[in-house]
């Protein structure tokens, strides 16, 4: 009994000793936990896979070069399989049980909106890494992708000038498609153009003979295609087979869904998009990045823009934490408020806008040719995510936790 107690005391002493020496050696600090929610099965798996890969690549690189504030990163990835209820369930699990230090992910805008109220109840920062329909004014969320003022305000005037004033819209029937169509209506109105038809398509619909005919009846000059998912992408094949032959513009095609790699040419001929990233970008920084990616994932069909943004998100997180010298959201937001939250990304320097917590991007307008070759038509340089700031969202002063659209603006106070 007595000797047993002694032994325990000795053991306890030894443990305390090691604990003390551990806190001296920085490398032995517990790793930072990064929660990642990305679909790698289900309907959007083909887009989600590059997001997982981008995150894995960034984590590996950051860990090799010493981690964040000397701490290694542990990536905890869960696969919500495109199910919004599962996004919420897994989001709660990562935030409350695994106590992750940062949450990243979400593909569709529906999944992001499902997740956001749960994130808002915590003090954990959340990075959304897709381009999207814009408008989220929420202090917990940092958006890494491009938004309408970067994508539509560039693309639509260009399409109108080049092809004409009549547009027909086919859009996926959920918040992303509906709000994007609203943006199109507003910009077309400002330009004196005409929306000759709008068709919202339920997710999962794959047959488009009637849509193609409706388009021919309306006689537009060009099409805005913001259809989403593998089933709806069948539109391109069916439109090409029916010889529809209209110029197309989009905020998600080519750089995000790599339809030009998935369909046989010339199904995507005459598609246009504005993007901060597409794999065909030919700059030394981009080529270096692509080389590293393909070395780690040789089977990757295409490095899409959300995979690229997912990669950047971890570097942005690293930059924020190291400048703030803290992993607390409020300290990181103080860095954002200085306007000095920037990283050197493969596209060039990108910064977080203090008012909206969205990211500035170097935008290029690309077109797809008959052999599915991608050409840069116009380089817009860096465009700020200015819209939210202009309409009165200022996260440095007030946390709205709301999503604004051209028809849902903040109340003037």
């Amino acid at each position, binding site marked *: 009994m007595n000797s047993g107690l002694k032994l325990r005391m000795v053991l306890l002493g030894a443990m305390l000793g090691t604990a003390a020496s551990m806190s001296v050696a920085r490398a032995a600090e517990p790793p930072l936990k990064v929660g990642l929610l990305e679909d*790698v*099965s*289900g*309907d959007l*798996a*083909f887009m*989600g*896979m590059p997001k997982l890969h981008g995150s894995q690549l960034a984590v590996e690189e950051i860990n090799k070069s010493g981690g964040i504030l000397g701490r290694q990163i542990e990536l905890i990835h869960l696969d919500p399989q495109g199910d919004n209820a599962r996004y919420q369930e897994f989001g709660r699990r990562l935030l409350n049980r695994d106590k992750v230090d940062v949450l990243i992910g979400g593909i569709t805008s529906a999944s992001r909106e499902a997740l956001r109220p749960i994130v808002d109840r915590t003090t954990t920062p959340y990075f959304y890494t897709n381009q999207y329909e814009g408008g989220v004014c929420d202090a917990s969320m940092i958006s890494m992708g491009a938004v309408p003022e970067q994508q539509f305000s560039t693309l639509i005037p260009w399409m109108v000038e080049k092809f004409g004033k009549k547009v027909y819209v086919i859009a996926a*029937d959920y918040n992303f498609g509906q709000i994007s169509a609203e943006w199109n209506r507003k910009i077309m109105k400002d330009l004196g153009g005409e929306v000759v038809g709008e*068709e*919202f*398509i*339920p997710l*999962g*619909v*794959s*047959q488009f*003979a*009637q*849509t193609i*005919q*409706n388009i*021919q*009846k309306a*006689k537009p000059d060009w099409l805005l295609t913001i259809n989403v998912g*593998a*089933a709806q*992408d*069948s539109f391109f*094949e*069916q439109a*090409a*087979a*029916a*010889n*529809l032959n209209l110029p197309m513009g989009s905020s998600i095609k080519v750089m995000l869904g790599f339809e030009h*790699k*998935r*369909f*046989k040419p010339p*199904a995507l001929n005459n598609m246009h998009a504005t993007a901060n990233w597409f794999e065909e970008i030919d700059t030394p920084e981009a080529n270096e990045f692509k080389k590293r990616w393909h070395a780690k994932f040789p*089977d990757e*069909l295409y490095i899409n823009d959300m995979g690229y943004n997912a990669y950047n998100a971890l570097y942005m997180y690293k930059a924020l934490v190291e400048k703030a010298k803290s992993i607390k959201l409020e300290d990181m937001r103080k860095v954002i408020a200085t306007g000095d939250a920037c990283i050197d990304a493969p596209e060039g320097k990108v910064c977080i806008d203090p008012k909206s917590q969205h990211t500035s991007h170097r935008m290029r307008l690309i077109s797809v040719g008959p052999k599915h070759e991608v050409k840069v038509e116009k380089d817009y340089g860096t465009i700020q995510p200015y819209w939210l700031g202009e309409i009165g969202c200022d996260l440095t002063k007030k946390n709205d936790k709301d999503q604004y659209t051209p028809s849902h603006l903040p109340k003037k106070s």
Partner: protein
Amino acid sequence: MSAEVFSVFYQFADVFAFLILSAAGLAIVFGMMGVINMAHGEFIMCGAYVTVGLVNLGVPLPIAQILAAVTAGLIGVLVEFLVVRRFYKRPLDSLLATWGLSLIVTQSMLLIVGSAVRGIGTPEGSFAVGGYTFSTYRLVLFGCAVAVLAGLYVIFMKTRFGVIARATMQNAAMAKALGARTGRIYAISFGIGTGLAGLCGALYAPTMTLIPTMGATFVVESFVTVVIGGANVLLGTAPAAVFLAMIRMALNASYGQIIGQIGMLVAVILIIRVLPEGLSSVLVRRGR
């Protein structure tokens, strides 16, 4: 004017072909045999993937499509032997078993083949009527749908196998007592059903994106067509498809795809409420 008339026919033919081709296999497996085959979409996916694989190997498209249907049929016979056979008297368990099979198959395809496969492109050919242009291949699909209906009629109404098969489905014990090899009949019927599902995938493969979950886009339509068609496959499925195609086409054309889909499903609910036995019950009663 003639362009408008033709376009109405074309749109009807397009929806009709989609409903018939996606439902034909299920009409046999579910309608006749009573197996709630939740893996129906995966047999369609199988047909599509085999077609694309063979075309990429240099096999001409029509031959690849026939081989794909045969492959799906043979796999169906195997699945019947290994799994479905044990569940003929437990229809609800067959639902679970085939659903499990469907999950296993889609996940395995995702892991083995990857999340997306490059398409092969629709065969060339379009024609113009008035101001509209149409894809020739969509009319080929319509022709195939009619041929499938005719083929089913011949097989199940005009051949010895058809008589025995119908006898087996109606009363297996009696058929067995009269010397029919019911086990084999079940296996072959199931194989024909999955083969037709494979044919559907093979025919639509050139027009669609191939992903492991692609079968899901066919499943709702195929089940509603079979359910409102009723138990009599030959008398039920075709009028059910005509009826649903007309509703969907009219609503699609006037109000767009959302209303088209909602309208079709509302029609299905109403029919099941009024005619729980399906459309074929009315036709059979009239026939007597």
